């Protein structure tokens, strides 16, 4: 006998899928954030060759479909190095690099928005480059970049839905599995959509709260 109806176990399956999606998002976003802002700092100090190389590579990543990037890493790279990659590793690698590309362009804009005179003043006081980034450039660039970063985070959460193609059992794959058993695609995809929507909305809310906190010191005092 085929069990075609929805059961309580399906809830667990969807919850597990959502957990994988959120975990993958959190991990790759964090790595992308570190790599992307690192590349932006390299670019900012005009490190010869390395800066241009990073810029070209990240521009290529930003201007190509994530799906093709996933295929290249999961199917292409193993064919080249004769070494299979696990789906989760390939997904993590691709999404981290993709996030880094978008973070890089946001961080470059943020760093450029900090006034030149401040950098010159810091140099005059004898601050090293590391101190300059940590105390002068970083905090201010972050204030400029926080709004686009929140938008990017919501976007990258949705991009994780693509990893189902290479066999990672995330929320979309869980919906796919559920759909195959119940044959009720209308209800299943609506449910999956609602779950993604709720997750994205929560993320936006948290991001906005963080943004308000970062900007609190810059807000006009209402004189």
């Amino acid at each position, binding site marked *: 006998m085929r069990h075609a109806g929805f059961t309580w176990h399906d809830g667990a399956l969807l919850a597990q899928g959502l957990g994988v999606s959120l975990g993958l998002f959190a991990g790759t976003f964090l790595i992308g954030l570190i790599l992307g802002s690192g590349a932006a700092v390299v670019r900012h100090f005009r490190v010869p060759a390395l800066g241009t190389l990073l810029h070209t590579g990240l521009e290529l990543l930003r201007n190509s479909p994530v799906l093709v990037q996933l295929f290249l890493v999961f199917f292409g790279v193993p064919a*080249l190095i004769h070494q299979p990659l696990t789906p989760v590793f390939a997904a993590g690698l691709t999404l981290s690099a993709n996030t880094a590309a978008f973070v890089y362009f946001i961080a470059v804009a943020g760093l450029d928005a900090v006034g030149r005179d401040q950098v010159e003043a810091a140099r005059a006081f004898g601050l090293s480059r590391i101190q300059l980034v940590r105390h002068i450039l970083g905090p201010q660039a972050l204030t400029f*970049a926080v709004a686009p970063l929140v*938008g990017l985070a919501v976007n990258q959460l949705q*991009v994780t*839905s693509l990893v189902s193609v290479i066999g990672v059992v995330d929320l979309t794959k869980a919906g796919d599995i559920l759909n195959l058993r119940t044959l009720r*695609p209308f209800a*299943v*995809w609506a449910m999956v959509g609602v779950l993604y929507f709720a997750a994205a909305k929560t993320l936006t809310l948290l991001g906005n709260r963080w943004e308000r906190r970062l900007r609190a010191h810059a807000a006009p005092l209402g004189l």
Partner: protein
Amino acid sequence: MPFDLTVLTPHLDTLLAGALLTAGVCALGIAAAFALATALGVLAVGGGWAGRLARLYVDVFRNVPFVVQVFFLFYGLPEVGVYIDAFWTGVLALGLVGGAYGSDVVRSGILAIEPGVVEAAKVGGLSRPAIIRRIVLPIALRTAIRPLGSVFVNLVLSSSILSMITLDEVTGTARGVASETYRPFEVYAFLLAAYAGLTYAVSLGIDALHRRLNRHMADNGAARGAAPGAMEGTA
């Protein structure tokens, strides 16, 4: 196996056929997205239930992954008796999501118009539709062309996802070529570069269009948002 792009030469015509299908679905999708973005952008500025409904629409389509939307349209709708083939599902999905992202751009373009311009039109006795058509939209769309362009570039990238609903556009044909040649790295690397080249060409075209439409402006319309556009994506 060393990296060798020449393995692709026998399959170039297959890939080209896929690329043409991508171009077709994207052109129709972008046209639909532009129309929807303009209409929604105008509605979202206003108050009342129409404005609230337009903002809700944008909220839903921006916060649900594109794959899930596509699956819903392609697999979900037949359950309630609506059948659309893969190509038109693709056009519809690109239009719906592009309209949502684009309407935000159009909306901020409208909000950036100086109120005095609209007030002058009102005093001049123009009706509301005439003000929107002859005053508001020409100004708003002119400033919105660059961010709209990056929304459309992202639609082209998102169209690769349509290969998941059996549409044999360029990513779909590339999958076929990869499994036929056993050279997935070459195939996908070539495809990645092709997409990047295409989107780069499109953004150059948009820059030229932007300059042409704003040629009478003192600063050539140089004033534009610093970061937005960079992360306006659809996935």
